[in-house]
C-alpha cells in the first residue's frame, strides 16, 4: 500500500462500502440506520472492494470507476424507491450512503490525478 493520504482515503472509503453489508438485518443493525437490500449489498461489496484495490495499488482509474459506480447506484436508488420496482431494495438512507461514498471517491481520485508526481497506471 502506498503512503499517499489520498490512496489511504480511497481504501478507507472502500472499506466503509464493504462494511455496509453488515448493515443488513442479518448483519445485525438493530436500528436500521441504512436500508440495504440484496441488490445494494452486492453493489456495495463489489464497488467497495474495487475502491480498496484501487487505493492499495494507487490505480486512480479503479477509484474513479468505484466512485462513478456509487453515484450511478445512488441515482438508480433515488429513481426507484417508493415505487413498485426497487432493484437495490433500499430507500433514501441508501441514496445518502452511496452518494457520500461516490462523491468522496471521485474527489479523492480527481485530486490524486491532479498531483504533479502522479504516474498514471492502467486498470
Amino acid at each position, binding site marked *: 500500500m502506498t503512503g499517499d*493520504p*489520498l490512496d489511504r*482515503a480511497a481504501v478507507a*472509503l472502500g472499506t466503509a462500502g464493504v462494511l455496509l453489508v453488515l448493515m443488513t438485518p442479518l448483519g445485525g443493525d438493530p*436500528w*436500521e*440506520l*441504512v*436500508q440495504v437490500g440484496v441488490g445494494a449489498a452486492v453493489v456495495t461489496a463489489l464497488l467497495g472492494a474495487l475502491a480498496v484495490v484501487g487505493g492499495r495499488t494507487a490505480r486512480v482509474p479503479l477509484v474513479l470507476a468505484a466512485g462513478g459506480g456509487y453515484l450511478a447506484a445512488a441515482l438508480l436508488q*433515488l429513481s426507484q*424507491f*417508493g*415505487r413498485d420496482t426497487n432493484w437495490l431494495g433500499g*430507500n*433514501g*438512507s*441508501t*441514496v*445518502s*450512503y452511496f*452518494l*457520500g*461514498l461516490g*462523491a*468522496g471517491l471521485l*474527489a*479523492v481520485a480527481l*485530486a490524486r490525478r*491532479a498531483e504533479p508526481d502522479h504516474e498514471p497506471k492502467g486498470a
Partner: protein
Amino acid sequence: MYDDGAPGEPLPDTRGTRLGVAALRIGVALMWVQNAGWKTPPDFGAASEPARGLRRFTEFAVDHPVLPPYAWFVDNVVLPNFTFFGWVTLLVEASLGAFLLIGLATRFWAVVGFAQSLAITLSVLNAPHEWHWSYFLMLLAHVALLATAAGRAYGLDGVLRPRWRRASGRGAALLVRAS
C-alpha cells in the same frame, strides 16, 4: 498583561480530541442518513388518510405552531406545493448524511444542517410527545461541527484542504472556506 488575541487556552489537538470530533461528525451524519430513509416519494405521506411520514410532521407546524410567521409560511407556501418541498427535504437530508459522513465541505454542511434542524424544530417542537431537547441538541451538534471544522479530523477535508490552499482559482478558495 500579555494578550496574544486568544480568548483563553487553545483547545487540545490530541488524538483523543480528533477521534471525539470525528465520532460526533459521523454520528450526526448517520442521523441524517437514517432520516432520509423515511422521506418516501412520490407523495411523501400525503396520499394517506390521515397523512403519514413527512406530510404528517410538516402539518404539525400548522396544528401546533411554534412561530406564527413560520406556521403561516408552511400553511400557505409549503403545504400547497408539498411534493416540491418533499423532494427538497429528501435531497437536502440525503446530502447532509453523505457529506458529513465523509467529512467533505463540512463547515458548509454544518450550516445547512443547522438550518434544516431549525426548520424541523419550528415544525414539531410543540407537537405532542416530543422531547424539546432532541431539537436543541440537533442544533447544538451542528454548532459544534461548524466550530471545530469537524471534517479536518479523519475526514476528507483534512486530506484535501492543503491541496485546495495551494491551488489557485475561485473553486478552491470556496472549498477552503467551506471546509
